[in-house]
Every structure is written in structure tokens, then in C-alpha cells.
């Protein structure tokens, strides 16, 4: 009985040190989040407010989108609407080609990953440079992100050093200038040096690029602002040097006004990285002098999710990553064990909403511990949604046959009390099965467990004989 996730996770378990480090790293972020939560007496009120604000906005989304668009247009922004990923990619390409853009610098956006923007642009001859340090490392190493906020924590510094040396053209020059600037020698295993290399390399990219693309953490309907939060300032560099700015925004990112923004600004970094704030919280309301700004509002299934009574609350998600940090399964299996590009509790649910047949392998990656429900700043009912997706698997033709058989077996036993009691009487016979037979693959319990000893008498039997 296995899924792609369980198989991948099993392979991952072989590297005990790696698993340990991954688990410690992300539980550490969960602990930082806990400290933030304990420091604010109003913490639970903030979560409740965030949940209610999102529920309100999402259930009035069409009106708010119209307001947002009207304000953005009034501010001199071009607003586009993309029904799906294909249309989104077309719109981006059209804007870029109209401006004869050959190189784009971009800040992190899960939406662009969802729509496979980078591959699409590269195919059509436009160079895309990720400017978030983690994303740039992964881009150069041709690896996928393993987490939505800290995507490259699983990568070792030595491998980053190697990659930079091989792929960054003026690496040696940069190394020399590093030694000249400080009194530290350029050490390829030193994150400070590696970050410096990335800084110098990316500055060149900012200068060469003709366009900057960002995502949007929030859109504010009342003013037409797009808010982008980063620790590095790469979204700001990407939009301060090149003159063309394209924003990619999922329609569910909208919030009504600045009063709401106060709630979300205070929650985002505390939940995502355990900091009181990201270093930069930038409000883009209109184009730069001499520049142009475009916002592409992307649906790509979101308006349909709204109609899904059991799962519409995933639209409240602000992509903070807190759920994966607290998930004991994510921490021990890591992003690459999941088949959807977003892992963890929210990833299981979003993947099923994207394509329930393709991404059903992730539904096994949950012990239903409910920790995620308790950290989510917007109170998305994640574990309940996973439970509900499990009920769908059979009708999707994705239920594990062994699980189904075991469930049917149990169901038969439990619905026939006399048969059940006979089975109980016979169960001590299991004690006599020789260990080698017991430990066969056919007995999945034996994988990690010593087999239980069945007591001579079940409670039912004891009750009859002793207690009455």
C-alpha cells in the first residue's frame, strides 16, 4: 500500500542526517512563530479578524475587483484579466514583446510557478532571472523549490559555491572585490561571501533587464495598491531600475482597505518566518515617472473554487508557509516528496483542487493531527479538507485497493457483532505466528513495529466471565 508521496518519503528517510536537519530547521521556524504568537495578547483576535476579512472579501470578490481595477486605472496602471494560465502567459509575452524585452528580472511569485511562466518565456527567447536569493540558487542549479517561503534551505553551501563558480561569469572578479572590500578572504563555503556574489551578479542583471516582474502579497481595493513584502528588497530593485513593471496577482489576494492591511501586515511575517515584519513592505500604486505598470489579475480556477462548498476556504490562504513548518509529515519528507509544486497541508488541498486525479498521491501525507489548523493565520480548515478529500478518492478511482479491502473487512466485522466476537476469540492465535512470517511485506504493520501480543481474553470476554 503506497502512494508516490509515501514511496518518495521512504527513500528520503534513508538519509537520517538530512531528515533530522530538515525537521529541526523547519520546526525552528515554527518555534519562532510561536514566540511571535505568545508576544501578542491580541494574537487569536488577529487570526479571527484575518479569517473574517478574507471570508468577507472573497464572498464579495467581484465587486472588490471592479473597485480595485477602477482605482488602478485611475492611477495610470494597465489592468489585464487572465481566465487561465495560458491566457496569463500570452498576456505577459505580449506586454514584454511589445516593449522588446529580452531580459526580465523577477521577484518571488508562487502564481508564476503555478502558471509555468518561466518555461514559457524562456521557450520564446526571453531570459528570466529570479532575484530572490533562494530562487536564483535553484534556478541556476535547475532544482525545484522545496518550500514556498524558504525554497532552498535543503541545498548545501558547498553545492551553491560550486554552482556560482561554474555559472556566474565574473565570479573570480567578484571574489577579488570581496576580499578588497572587507578583510575577509573569499570562502566558497561562507554564506556571507556567497550572498555577496549573488548581490553583485544580480545588480548586473537589474541593470541589463528591460522589465521587472513581481507577484503581489496583497491588493488593496480601496486604493488600487499592490503590496509586495520581501526581506531582500529584490522586488524593489527589480522595479526601481527597469522601467516596465508587471504585477502577477491571483484574484484571491485582494483585501478591502488599509484597515485590513494592518491586520495582514502584522500576521504575514510573524507566521511565515517568525519575524515581526519583512524588511520591505512596498506599496505600488502606479507607474514610475517615465515608466509603465501592468497588473494581470489571474483566475486559473479560483472562481470555480469559490463554488466548492467544502474547499472554498483555501482562497483565504496568504501563502505564508506556516502550515508546512508545523506539519510533522512535511518536516520529515520535504518538498520533493510531494507531487504538487506546493507541499504540506495547503499543497495537498490546492493540488487536489488543481487536478484531483493527478495530485491524489499527496492525500496520504497527513496523520490528521490538526496542528496546521491551529497555526494558519487565516484559519483555513486544512485538516478537515484533507479528510474530505480522502472521502473522494474512491469515486475518483484513486483509493488504495489494500486500504479499501481492509476497510471493507473491518466494516464487515464491526457490523456483525457475533462474527466480531468470534474473531476476538481467535485473535490470540496471531501470537503464535512465527516472527519471520509475521515480518513479511504482506504485514505492513511489521515495517516499523514489533507485533503486538493479543491478550488471551478481549474485554468482551472478560466482561462476560469476570465482571458480570
Amino acid at each position, binding site marked *: 500500500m503506497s502512494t508516490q508521496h509515501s514511496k518518495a518519503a521512504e527513500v528520503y528517510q534513508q538519509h537520517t542526517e538530512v531528515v533530522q536537519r530538515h525537521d529541526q530547521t523547519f520546526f525552528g521556524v515554527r518555534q519562532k512563530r510561536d514566540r511571535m504568537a505568545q508576544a501578542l495578547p491580541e494574537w487569536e483576535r488577529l487570526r479571527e479578524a484575518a479569517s473574517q476579512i478574507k471570508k468577507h472579501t472573497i464572498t464579495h470578490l467581484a465587486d472588490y475587483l471592479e473597485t480595485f481595477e477602477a482605482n488602478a486605472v485611475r492611477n495610470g496602471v494597465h489592468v489585464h484579466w487572465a481566465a487561465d494560465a495560458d491566457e496569463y502567459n500570452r498576456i505577459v509575452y505580449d506586454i514584454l514583446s511589445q516593449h522588446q524585452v529580452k531580459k526580465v528580472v523577477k521577484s518571488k511569485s508562487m502564481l508564476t510557478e503555478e502558471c509555468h511562466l518561466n518555461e514559457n518565456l524562456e521557450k520564446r527567447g526571453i531570459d528570466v532571472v529570479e532575484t530572490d536569493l533562494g530562487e536564483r540558487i535553484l534556478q541556476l542549479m535547475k532544482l525545484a523549490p522545496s518550500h514556498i517561503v524558504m525554497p532552498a534551505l535543503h541545498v548545501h553551501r558547498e553545492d551553491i559555491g560550486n554552482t556560482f563558480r561554474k555559472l556566474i561569469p565574473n565570479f573570480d572578479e567578484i571574489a577579488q572585490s570581496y576580499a578588497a572590500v572587507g578583510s575577509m578572504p573569499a570562502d566558497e563555503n561562507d554564506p556571507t561571501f556567497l550572498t555577496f556574489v549573488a548581490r553583485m551578479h544580480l545588480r548586473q542583471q537589474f541593470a541589463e533587464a528591460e522589465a521587472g516582474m513581481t507577484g503581489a502579497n496583497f491588493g488593496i481595493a480601496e486604493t488600487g495598491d499592490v503590496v509586495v513584502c520581501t526581506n531582500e528588497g529584490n522586488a524593489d530593485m527589480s522595479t526601481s531600475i527597469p522601467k516596465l513593471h508587471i504585477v502577477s496577482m491571483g484574484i484571491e489576494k485582494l483585501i478591502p482597505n488599509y484597515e485590513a492591511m494592518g491586520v495582514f501586515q502584522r500576521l504575514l511575517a510573524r507566521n511565515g518566518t517568525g519575524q515581526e515584519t519583512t524588511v520591505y513592505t512596498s506599496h505600488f500604486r502606479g507607474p514610475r515617472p517615465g515608466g509603465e505598470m501592468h497588473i494581470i489579475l489571474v483566475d486559473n480556477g479560483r472562481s470555480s473554487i469559490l463554488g466548492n462548498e467544502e474547499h472554498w476556504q483555501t482562497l483565504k490562504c496568504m501563502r505564508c508557509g506556516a502550515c508546512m513548518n508545523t506539519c510533522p*509529515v512535511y518536516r520529515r519528507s520535504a518538498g520533493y516528496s510531494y507531487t504538487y509544486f506546493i507541499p504540506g497541508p495547503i499543497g495537498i488541498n490546492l493540488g487536489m483542487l488543481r487536478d484531483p486525479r493527478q495530485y491524489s498521491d499527496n492525500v496520504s501525507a*497527513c*496523520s490528521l493531527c490538526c496542528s496546521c489548523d491551529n*497555526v494558519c493565520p487565516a484559519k483555513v480548515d486544512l485538516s478537515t479538507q484533507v479528510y474530505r478529500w480522502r472521502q473522494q478518492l474512491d469515486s475518483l478511482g484513486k*483509493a488504495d485497493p489494500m486500504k*479499501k479491502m481492509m476497510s471493507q473487512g*473491518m466494516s464487515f466485522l464491526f*457490523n456483525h*457483532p457475533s462474527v466480531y466476537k468470534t474473531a476476538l476469540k481467535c485473535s490470540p492465535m496471531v501470537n503464535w505466528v512465527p516472527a519471520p512470517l509475521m515480518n513479511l511485506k504482506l504485514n505492513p504493520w511489521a515495517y516499523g513495529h514489533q507485533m503486538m501480543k493479543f491478550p488471551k481474553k478481549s474485554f468482551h470476554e472478560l466482561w462476560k466471565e469476570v465482571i458480570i
Partner: protein
Amino acid sequence: MKIGLFIPCYVDALYPEVGVSTYKLLKSLGLDVEYPERQTCCGQPMGNAGFERMSVPLAKKFDELFAPYDYVVAPSASCAAYVRCFHPNLLGKKPEDCEAAGKTVDIVEFLHDVIQVKSLPAKFPHKVSVHNSCHGVRELGLSSPSERNVPKFNKIIDLLQLVEGIEVVEPERPDECCGFGGMFAVEEQAVSRKMGLDKVNRHIATGAEYVTGPDSSCLMHMQGVAEKEQLPIQFIHVVQILASGL
């Protein structure tokens, strides 16, 4: 007050002593306890595996069988939670319209909140590490979830403090999941085992001789993992400690 004793399927089959302790303890408090014999299972294993439709007849039977009682008490946090939180939906009714779901409680919350036990003749001169089972914490509210900013409390510990000679500790990551999760343990074997190992090791690190908790399923999983690795710690259900001395 008439109490209906609900002994979950795996407690029935594997840990009948937990059922016996529960019965003895309730009787020692002068309560009227019955055990409707036609009971089998609450349906949680099938539900969590994705076949909750198979649990519907069990929920119906449960509702009928336990209708005559004021409280249904079970020595299992996850089973009590499944009945209370999921049976109404299975029955297509509101919780207040169900016969049994609304009054089904785990033994810990029953003793702590309903009977409000203030003393017990229990003696257990050992150091125990408390296992805060997930469904107990987050569905029944047996203790404050570590994720939340709420006043700290732990009903299991409150009850254990009534036991003479006992030393009670909690492990690091006091309410992280042990990795049982029902079918999760067999479908995601490797991760489940790792979660179990990590949890057992954290319990051992407290220096405790026993791991104790309100859910035999968690204890069963951890015990299986511990025995396979020959790790030195024992497992006992909370109700057995509370009933010691009877």
C-alpha cells in the same frame, strides 16, 4: 446518572485491561455503569482511510445503542472525538439531534469536567512522561494546543497530580503527533515510523519510566516502534494509573 461504557475495538482486542480499569474506576466513584455488549467500533479507522460511508451504519448503531445513557464514556480520546465531531455529519443530523454523539466523552474529560474528581486512592510511584494525543488536544480540548496563545492547561496532568508518589513530566514538542494516524501508519510507513521514533526518543529524554496518555492507539504505535528498536521505556494508559490502588 447512567453511564454507557464504550470500549473501542482495538482496546477490546488488544488492551482489555484499559477497559477493566475504566470500569473499576467509574464504579469506585459510585457511578451506575453499563456496557452494551453489541458495540464494536466508532468507525474512525474507515473514516480516516477515506471510506466514511462504511462508518454510517456503525454511527447509526452507536446512536441507538447508547441512546438510554446520560453519558457515554470511552478510554480513548480519538474515538470519543470521532463520535462527537464526525458522527453528526455521518447521521446527517445536527449534534443536538443525535442521541449519543453530544454526550460521548473521553474518560479524562469526564473525570475532570463532569465528575470533577478531587481525590483518588491511586498510587503510582514512578516518573511518567505525558503523551498529549493530537485528537485529545485539538478536538477534545484536553490540553491547550502549543500553537495557540491561550491560557495554558492540561486536564491529563491535573488528574495525574492526584496520584500518590507520581512524578509527571512532558517531553519537548509536547503535542507533536506520534505518527499513528490510523491507516497513515501503514500507508506512510516510513514517515510514521520516524515520527514514532522521534516521539519515543523525546519521551525517553525526560528520564521517565513510563509514557502515559489518553489514547491506546498512540501508545500501541509508540510501543511497537520502541520494542522493535529495543528502546527502554514502558507504556501505560492514563486510566490504568488513575485506577491503580483499586
